[in-house]
């Protein structure tokens, strides 16, 4: 019988939480901890039991919409309009816990909160706010955000969708691509070029000439709806224009909000992968000893924990800056880049460490890995974020 080193039951030091080596949680306020706990419990009880089936069968688990709304997770940063009015750290923690479940569900909440409710709140008229925000907070109205176009997403200034004035109306023509929630949205925030610059339009479901086509056969974000939007002489009244912003800074400011949430969210996916690997490496006996007793395995899990720790500290400080009103988009780019890269690398390595089991949906890494291929791409590819930082450092726009 081989003797394997036993873990000591007592030690002089308290064991660290492998998913939070720097005890970032101790930096949170009571409210922030409560938010994390309630979302974590929701994910454990209601998301994890259904998400694998949704991913495998490629559908969005719509039953969860009412539940996330009931918890107050939609538009959580907005004050008033039946929204919770929580701080940026809370929004980050919501994203982190939801994405520990699945990036698809987190994407749904990111889009609704940061890309739809945020611009309506920041740039909308009072009528637009009272009409849409309470309904969106309750999950009764779903929104989507149309910026990216079929010819490319990284260069939004080359926008081909146009809106032209016609009397007191606007007429829109063009197409949008890779739109999360696109085919289920009651209201789409569509960005279009006008003679004055880029403007945001609220386009309601069923408006003549406006159609959404779901993108099928994705190998990523399978538990989330992605669609293409087509605008063929879509006529909307002037009341549907977001009056508060003209120019690309409108949609870009929304992206800053959403990217902030993503920087937090992917930590959850990475934690889920590391947790799975640690359990597996303890249980799996290879060459008469648990996998976790090998130096090569320890180095790899240590590296995962290091990168999660870095991501957590980065996200926390980013959140503190945001709450202090000092956030710069470049700082968000650093975190989106670093944390998505970390999470994707962790998920890929976790899948590999699980060997054959790693290709089975019974274990979470391959699902997170496939999801994160989207997450590292959308809301600014890794390259775009690198160039944002490069521009900050050199003062030269190299896009």
């Amino acid at each position: 019988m081989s003797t394997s080193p036993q873990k000591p039951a007592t030690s002089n030091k308290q064991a660290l939480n492998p998913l939070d080596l720097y005890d970032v949680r101790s930096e949170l306020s009571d409210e922030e901890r409560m938010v994390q706990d309630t979302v974590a419990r929701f994910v454990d009880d209601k998301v994890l039991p259904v998400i694998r089936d949704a991913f495998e069968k490629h559908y969005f688990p719509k039953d969860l919409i009412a539940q996330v709304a009931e918890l107050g997770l939609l538009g959580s940063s907005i004050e008033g309009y039946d929204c919770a009015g929580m701080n940026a750290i809370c929004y980050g923690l919501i994203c982190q816990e939801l994405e520990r479940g699945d990036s698809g569900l987190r994407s749904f909440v990111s889009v609704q909160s940061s890309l739809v409710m945020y611009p309506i709140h920041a740039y909308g008229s009072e009528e637009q706010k009272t009409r849409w925000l309470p309904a969106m907070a309750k999950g009764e109205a779903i929104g989507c955000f149309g910026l990216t176009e079929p010819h490319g997403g990284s260069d939004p200034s080359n926008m081909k969708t146009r809106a032209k004035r016609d009397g007191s109306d606007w007429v829109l023509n063009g197409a949008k691509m890779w739109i999360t929630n696109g085919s289920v949205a009651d209201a789409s925030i569509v960005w279009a070029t006008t003679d004055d610059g880029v403007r945001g339009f609220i386009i309601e479901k069923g408006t003549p000439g406006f159609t959404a086509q779901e993108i099928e056969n994705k190998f990523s974000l399978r538990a989330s709806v992605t669609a293409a939007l087509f605008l063929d002489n879509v006529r909307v009244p002037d009341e549907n224009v977001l009056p508060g912003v003209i120019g690309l800074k409108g949609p870009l400011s929304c992206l800053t909000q959403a990217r902030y949430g993503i920087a937090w969210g992917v930590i959850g996916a990475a934690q889920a992968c590391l947790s799975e690997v640690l359990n597996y490496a303890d249980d799996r006996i290879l060459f008469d000893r648990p996998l976790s007793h090998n130096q090569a395995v320890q180095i790899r899990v240590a590296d995962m924990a290091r990168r999660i720790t870095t991501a957590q500290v980065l996200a926390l400080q980013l959140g503190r800056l945001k709450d202090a009103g000092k956030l710069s988009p470049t700082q968000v780019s650093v975190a989106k880049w670093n944390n998505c890269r970390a999470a994707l690398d962790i998920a890929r390595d976790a899948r590999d460490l699980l060997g054959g089991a790693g290709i089975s949906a019974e274990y979470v890494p391959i699902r997170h890995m496939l999801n994160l291929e989207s997450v590292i791409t959308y809301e600014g590819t890794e390259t775009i974020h690198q160039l944002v930082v490069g521009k900050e450092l050199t003062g030269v726009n190299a896009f």
Partner: protein
Amino acid sequence: MEKILVGLKRVVDYNVRVRVRSDGNGIETDGVKMSINPFDEIALEEALRIKERGEASEVIVVSIGPSEAQQQLRTGLAMGADRAILIESAEPVDPLSGARVFLELVNREQPGLVLLGKQAIDNDNNQAGQMLAAIWGCPQATFASKIDIQGSTATVTREVDIGLETIEIELPAVITTDLRLNEPRYVKLPDIMKAKKKPLDITPIADLGVEMASAYTNVAFDPPEQRTKGVMVQDVAGLVDALKDKGLI
């Protein structure tokens, strides 16, 4: 009834693998996730449902514990309790002393019902509720899996070894809650903000004038023995031999 008093104990979260402190004097709580004792959370949920049915007008959550137990009380307020009382004690409080503290609060608040978890998952004593009923001189119904309030009586279904027992008791009374009584609600984000404005009174335990019992002293804490690796046997005879070798048969 007017008031329901609910006990919320701060304990190590049920998901955490507890570790004995290096000095052997208890378990490690530094940097460990702490939560409301799950049975107490069920007690609070039940109290809130009773109130929501219009059968009570105020739910007061009480914790005896360190200053940090305010976190658990705030969670209780976010779930829907109306106000909170922390009886602050840096040292752990044994069940009898805890029952005496509750009796003092009962005398002050005059609740129609005290709802407690059947036990706390840290020490598993399962004593405080019974002791409170005894020193208060009121009826008790323990291990409740169903509670019906009709005016000044409560019909309580209890989970006992042979099945379910239904009893009727006069109020005021102490009821302790079992796992299957209800499923506690999720804390909603807007309610977390509202909870910040609800009253939370803190009283040092010494100020209550309650005699602290010291019926026992903790001598040692030991972690469960590590499971040793199993051995494979070829057949039944091998199994019997192995058991004989170990002196088990």
